[in-house]
């Protein structure tokens, strides 16, 4: 059968993510040590695991309400209030999703009609543009630059807004650059958006992993922005709960209602055991977040210093658990660099162009690894750079 004539042209035209492609290359090399994962090296907190076992033993295995357990939505509402002083109504303004990813998917699908433009700062996580394409929208990348500390600037935003602009994805703290948007940065963005009908999809999955004295701030906290922002977050990164697949969105009730419609048909309800465990995560695991943040922060300093010592230019990230050094000085493309590095010195890092064309010339290194692992990998990279004469 010629499936190419059967399968959706739109889907066939989508490419696999650059991360996925690089995984296939790295997996073919033996004894690779990786600095490529986008998930914590910590296990989910013990209390969370214990609660999941208890819930399973009680046989709580039925569907929950479409929007998620009422108790969990209340806990999320309380959590958001504590962090942002915004009180989202637990019954109408919060939806529990299968990871932050589903919340991104739902919000884009709820907003986009054919031809609508979605602004996507890049380099950024790989899923936004493909989802926009699937709903016949137009993904409009906005390049963020090293000289701006990879922040989205009001100037760049203005230049890309057209009458067709429907939404702006705001992915900070950023994967892969580690950039964050501080209050004054967000105020400048808000000033551009306040008089428009553009909705901000604020992907804040790394919000707990913000380093330095100032905590993460959401654009929803800026004057006039709450009514035009969908806040997306989840349990994967902050609570080391990637495999539980649990996230959420908080937004004006009109938006959540439409998202709920799609969620109800596509998913029904998020995994029940994960939802119960997530209540425990929110209520009891603040200390685990603190501990993990402290560990990441030390590794962050170590790896930035280590990479700079290797002679690579590296922006000092203030969030997430990645660094995004430039490899332009080697004269290689990101793909060449990463393929050669993994093949000759068995260290896997992700080519920057996997996160948008403007990521070319950079690599993403994750520091969600033990100190020992990081130091071994840095040593191999030192040898690699020496061997290629950089």
């Amino acid at each position, binding site marked *: 059968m010629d499936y190419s004539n059967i399968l959706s042209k739109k889907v066939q035209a989508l490419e696999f993510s650059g991360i996925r492609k690089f995984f296939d290359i790295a997996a073919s090399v033996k004894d*690779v040590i990786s600095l490529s994962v986008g998930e914590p090296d910590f296990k989910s907190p013990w209390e969370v695991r214990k609660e999941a076992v208890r819930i399973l033993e009680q046989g709580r295995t039925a569907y929950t309400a479409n929007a998620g357990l009422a108790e969990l939505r209340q806990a999320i509402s309380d959590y958001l209030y504590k962090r942002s002083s915004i009180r989202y109504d637990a019954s109408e303004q919060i939806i529990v999703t299968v990871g932050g990813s589903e919340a991104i998917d739902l919000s884009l699908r709820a907003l986009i009609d054919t031809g609508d433009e979605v602004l996507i700062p890049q380099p950024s996580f790989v899923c936004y543009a493909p989802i926009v394409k699937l709903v016949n929208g137009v993904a409009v990348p906005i390049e963020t630059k090293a000289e701006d500390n990879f922040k989205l600037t009001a100037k760049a935003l203005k230049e890309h807004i057209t009458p067709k602009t429907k939404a702006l994805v705001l992915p900070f703290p950023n994967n892969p650059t580690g950039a964050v948007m501080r209050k004054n940065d967000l105020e400048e963005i808000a000033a551009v958006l306040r008089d428009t009908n553009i909705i901000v999809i604020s992907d804040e999955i790394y919000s707990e992993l913000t380093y330095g004295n100032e905590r993460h701030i959401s654009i929803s906290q800026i004057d006039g922005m709450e009514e035009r922002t969908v806040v997306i977050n989840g349990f994967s990164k902050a609570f080391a709960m990637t495999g539980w697949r649990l996230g959420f969105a908080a937004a004006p009730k009109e938006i959540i209602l439409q998202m709920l419609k799609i969620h109800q048909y596509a998913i029904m309800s998020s995994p029940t055991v994960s939802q119960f465990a997530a209540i425990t995560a929110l209520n009891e695991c603040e200390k685990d977040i603190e501990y993990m943040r402290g560990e990441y922060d030390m590794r962050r300093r170590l790896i930035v210093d280590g990479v700079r010592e290797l002679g690579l230019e590296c922006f000092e990230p203030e969030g997430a658990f990645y660094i995004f050094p430039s490899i332009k000085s080697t004269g290689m493309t990101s793909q060449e660099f990463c393929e050669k590095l993994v093949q000759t010195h068995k260290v896997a890092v992700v080519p920057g162009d996997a996160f948008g064309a403007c990521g070319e010339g950079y690599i993403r290194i994750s520091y969600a690894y033990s100190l020992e692992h990081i130091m071994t990998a840095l040593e191999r990279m030192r040898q690699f750079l020496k061997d290629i004469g950089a």
Partner: protein
Amino acid sequence: MTDKERIINILRQDARISNEKIAVMLNITVDEAAKMISELEDEGIIIGYTAITNDEKMDKNFVCALIDVKVSPQVSCGYDGVAMKIAAYREVSSVYLMSGGYDLSVTIKGRNLREVAMFVTERLAPLDGVISTTTHFILHRYKEKDKMFTRNTDERSLVSP
């Protein structure tokens, strides 16, 4: 967590890490790091640095035993006198005072079974104050000083979003 606590955590993961790297991680100067470490040493909080070895790999006959020792406490110094005497032996790698059914828990290492047996019967049991000993041979070690004897496998995918 204080900087000193962080330093201890780092050194417990890797005691050979340089002061420069510790300074980078804590965002302090190398001199400050060195000063804190020597303070920790002076205060007797850090009592030494040692390699954690897998002796079974070096010597197939190597044995390690845990010995429960019952002791009659002395009027002048309680258990300390006997404990210090036992601790002074080169073969002994740890001595703990225990709650429960016996008093001292002693870990000893020897090149073979016989060496351990001789140590217990000739040196440990006859000591003044020692009432009885029970020797447990360690069959296999899985973890010591926070380190696993087998390499931890990372079950995460090699590359992920």
